C-alpha cells in the first residue's frame, strides 16, 4: 500500500473544489503563450496563436434593452431538452423564431450558444452532447435567416450546472442550451 501511495505521487489530480462560475473580468478569448505561476495571474506575452476573436459589439444598441425586458420573449434565453435528445421541442420554437428575427434585424450582433448536459456519464461525451444541443439551436436560427458569422455554438458539457443537485429535477434543468449576447460572455 505504501508503494501504491508513493506511486500515486506521480498522478496529477485536478481538484476542482465546488467551483461556481463567476465572471472574472475581461477575458482574452484565445490566450497566446502565457507565463503562469501556480495560483497567480496570467500574463500575456504573445498574441493569440490560433484564435480569431471578434470583439463584442456595442451594448448601447437600443435592441439590447429588449433582450433584458422580462416582458419581451427575447429575454428568454434557455431551450431545454429531453434526456439523450437534441430535438428542439415545439414549445421553444417561438423563442428561437424571435431570436432569429432579432439577429436578422441586427446583422452586426453576434450570439454565443452554450450547450449543456446533465452530469451522468463521461465528461467528454457529455461535452459532445451539449454541442449537439447548441448546434440544434444554431441550425434552426440559420434556417430562419440568421447568418453563420453571427452565431457560435459551443458546449460547456456537465461542467457548469445551473442546478448543482443530483436528482431528476436538477438534470432536467441542466439539459439546456443558452443564448448569450455581447456583454454576456
Amino acid at each position, binding site marked *: *500500500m505504501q508503494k*501504491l*501511495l508513493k*506511486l*500515486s*505521487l*506521480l*498522478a*496529477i*489530480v*485536478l*481538484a*476542482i*473544489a*465546488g*467551483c461556481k*462560475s*463567476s465572471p*472574472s473580468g475581461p*477575458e*482574452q*478569448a*484565445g*490566450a*497566446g*503563450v*502565457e*507565463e*503562469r*505561476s*501556480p*495560483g497567480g495571474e496570467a500574463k500575456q506575452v504573445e498574441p*493569440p*496563436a*490560433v*484564435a*480569431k476573436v471578434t470583439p463584442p459589439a456595442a451594448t448601447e444598441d437600443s435592441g439590447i434593452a429588449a433582450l433584458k425586458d422580462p416582458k419581451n420573449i427575447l429575454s428568454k434565453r434557455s431551450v431545454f431538452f429531453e434526456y439523450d435528445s437534441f430535438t428542439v421541442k415545439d414549445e421553444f420554437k417561438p423563442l428561437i423564431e424571435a431570436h432569429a428575427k432579432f439577429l436578422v434585424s441586427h446583422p452586426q450582433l453576434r450570439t*454565443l450558444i*452554450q450547450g449543456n448536459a446533465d452530469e451522468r*456519464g*463521461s*465528461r*467528454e*461525451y457529455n*461535452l*459532445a452532447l451539449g*454541442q*449537439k444541443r447548441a*448546434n440544434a439551436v444554431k441550425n434552426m436560427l440559420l434556417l430562419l435567416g440568421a447568418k453563420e458569422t453571427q452565431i*457560435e*455554438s*459551443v*458546449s*460547456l*458539457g456537465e*461542467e*457548469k450546472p445551473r442546478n448543482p443537485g*443530483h436528482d431528476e429535477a436538477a438534470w432536467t434543468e441542466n439539459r439546456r442550451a443558452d443564448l*448569450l449576447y455581447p456583454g454576456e*460572455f
Partner: protein
Amino acid sequence: MNPQTALASREPIISPAWSPDGTRLAYVSFEAKKPVVYVHSLASGRRHVIANFKGSNSAPAWSPDGARLAVVLTKDGGSQLYLVHADGSGVRRLTSSGGIDTEPFFSPDGQYIYFTSDRGGSPQIYRIPAAGGDAQRITFEGAYNVSPRLSPDGNSMVYVARNAGRFQLAVMNLATRQTHLLTDSSKDESPSFAPNGRMILYATEIGGRGVLAAVSSDGRFRQRLSLAASDVREPAWGPFMKF
C-alpha cells in the same frame, strides 16, 4: 502525499493528458467561456493554445512520440477527431461521421486511435488507423461504453460501461475481445493505466464526494486514495520519467 498545484483557475479544467515524456500537460480550460485546448510545460509554467477554433475544442490525447495530439473540434459542425502538431499547427481531420466522435486515445504503437462514437446509435468504442481509414467497432455489449484507455503493452483496454444506470470500469483483452467488470461502484470515470500496466487509477464518488481510487488490472485489489477536504476528479497517471 504532497500535491502541487499546476494551474489554478476559477473556471473548470478537464481532460488532463500527460505528454509521453512527462514534461507537459494538455488540458481543456473553460476560462474563455468555451472549451479551449492548452499545452502546459510543467517546469516553466508556460502554456500555449493548441486548439481554439470556432465551436468547442476538447479531449486532447498525445501520440506516443509526443509530436502530435488528437483533439476533438466542432469547427466543421459536430464533434469530430482531428490531428494537430504539438505546437498547434497542421490541423487535419481524421473522422467524418454524422454523429459524435470523441475521447481519442492512441494505441502505444501509435498505429491506431481508439475513440467513443455514437455513429451506431449508442455510444460505443471504435478504433481508426492514425494514418486515416475506416473505423472498426470494438465494443458490442451494452448501450453505453466510453472513455477507452489502453494498457502500456497495448494488450488490454479499460473503459467505462453503464450497467443498469451505474457507471463502472470494465477491461477488455484486445486479442480475445473478452471483457470483465473491474468495479462494483456506480460513478466511476477517467480510468488510466499505471506505467507498469498493473494498476488502474480512476475517479469515483463516495458519500457524494469525488475520490481518487485504484484497482489492480485483474480487478482483485481496490484501494481508495483520499485527499483531504476536496472533490477529486479526472486523474491521469503520469509516465515514467526519462532523464
